[in-house]
Structures are given as C-alpha cells and as structure tokens.
C-alpha cells in the first residue's frame, strides 16, 4: 500500500479522468443533436451514455473509478414530417436523434460539479503534504 496522501491524489485523478470522458460523450451527443441518416429511412445518431464503476487498484490498494462502458440510449427517436429530406422514409417522416439538449446540459453541469469536487480533494491533499514539509522547514 502506498502513502495514503499519494493514494488520494491518484484516486481523485482517476475521478478527473472519468469525468472528462463523460464530458467528451456529452459533447459528442450535443454536436450530433441533428445528425440524421443519409439514405431514406436510415437511422440517425443514437445518444451515447457513460457508466462508471468502482475498481480496485491492486498496486495502490485503493478503489479508483473507471469508465465501465459507453453505451447507447435505447429511447425512441424523434420524428419530423419532412418529405423532401434525403433521409425521409416512404411515409415522409424523418427520424431525428434521441438527444435532448436539456438532459445533456444537466449532465454537463453534474460533470462540472464532480470534476470540481475531485480538484478540491487534490488541493486538500497537496496542502496536507506541504504542511508536513513545513514541519521540517520551520522551528
């Protein structure tokens, strides 16, 4: 087992990494919020989701967080009546991605908040280390 203070920095950075991946997925969803198919009746972009899992880091003996899987949202697509669209089906309806920008925004805020919390932990661990070093410097 490594030094607990070093371990906490390691754990918090695993959190930062996981949250960054989540933000990447959110931005992918937002960027593709209007990506339809090319051929008639083709499926549009499907929203992606991120799931996390707690994983034991054997070397450090601590539980870090990892991105378990980037899955797809099974929710039905939005449809829009537009017969002139290249991706319109025989009935004239176009399938649009099942991305809801409000949900993505909420997800982004949560990512932001978790990222900030992890940064705060790193800051605290660092200040504890520097307080210990100050013991040697002072007196």
């Amino acid at each position: 087992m490594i030094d607990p203070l070093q371990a906490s920095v390691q754990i918090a950075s695993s959190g930062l990494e996981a949250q960054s991946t989540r933000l990447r997925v959110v931005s992918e969803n937002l960027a593709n919020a209007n990506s339809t198919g090319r051929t008639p009746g083709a499926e549009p972009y499907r929203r992606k989701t991120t799931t996390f899992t707690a994983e034991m880091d054997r070397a450090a003996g601590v539980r870090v967080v990892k991105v378990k899987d980037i899955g797809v949202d099974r929710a039905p697509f939005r449809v829009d009546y537009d017969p002139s669209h290249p991706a319109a089906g025989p009935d004239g309806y176009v399938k649009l991605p099942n991305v809801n920008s409000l949900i993505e925004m909420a997800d982004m805020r949560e990512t932001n908040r978790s990222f900030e919390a992890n940064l705060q932990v790193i800051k605290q661990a660092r200040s504890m280390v520097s307080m210990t070093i100050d013991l040697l410097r002072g007196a």
Partner: protein
Amino acid sequence: MGPVYLFDIASSHAQWLSLRQAAISSNVANANTPAYRAQDIEPFSKILDSKVVAVAVTDPKHIATGTSLRAQGMRKENSWEVVHSGNSVSLEQEMLKAGDVNRDYSLNTAIVKSFHRMFMNSTKT
C-alpha cells in the same frame, strides 16, 4: 521530567488523517458510480483505545501491535442521501469531511511544530 508521548500520538493521528483523506477521495471519485456505498474509516478514539492496551515490544523480533493503521477499518457510513442508482455519496458531506481533515491536520502540524520548538529551545540555550 516525565516522558512525552505527544509525538507518537501526533504521528499516528496524522497517519489516520491521511487515511481518512484517501477514503474521502475514493468517495468523491465514485460520486457517480452506480451502487457505490460511501465509506469512512474507524474514528480515531477507537484507535487510541486500542493503542493503550498494545503489547510491549521488548525484543526486535516482536511484532508491534495496535500501532499500525490499516484501511480495513473502512465501515459503511450513514450517508445523508441515497440516490436512485444506489449511490450513497453526498458531495456536500464529503467536502465537509475533507474540510475537517484539513483543519485537524493543520492543528496537528502546528502542535508538533510548537513542541519541537520548545524542545529545541531547551536544548539550545
């Protein structure tokens, strides 16, 4: 002058605080992990109690007891909130705990520093 046990206690308290910081950072990192339960380590008073009855080490081959802290002291914590995914980490609570740890650590190092200064003063002059 009687023996001063301060440095021993202060160092194990510092060790305990850093372990607690590691537990907090594990909780914060897993704040969005489904089914993750928030954890905390044993309170320091419990460890202090176990230290008092520690067996004396009179030979270098003896194994010291009650002095080493382990992360097995992890216990399920009664959390403020449990969300629908089964995650019981409350970021507010964790930040509060991290603030506590930081303040205690600062107190700890300040005490050690001042006692050290006291010793140095008595040896130097």
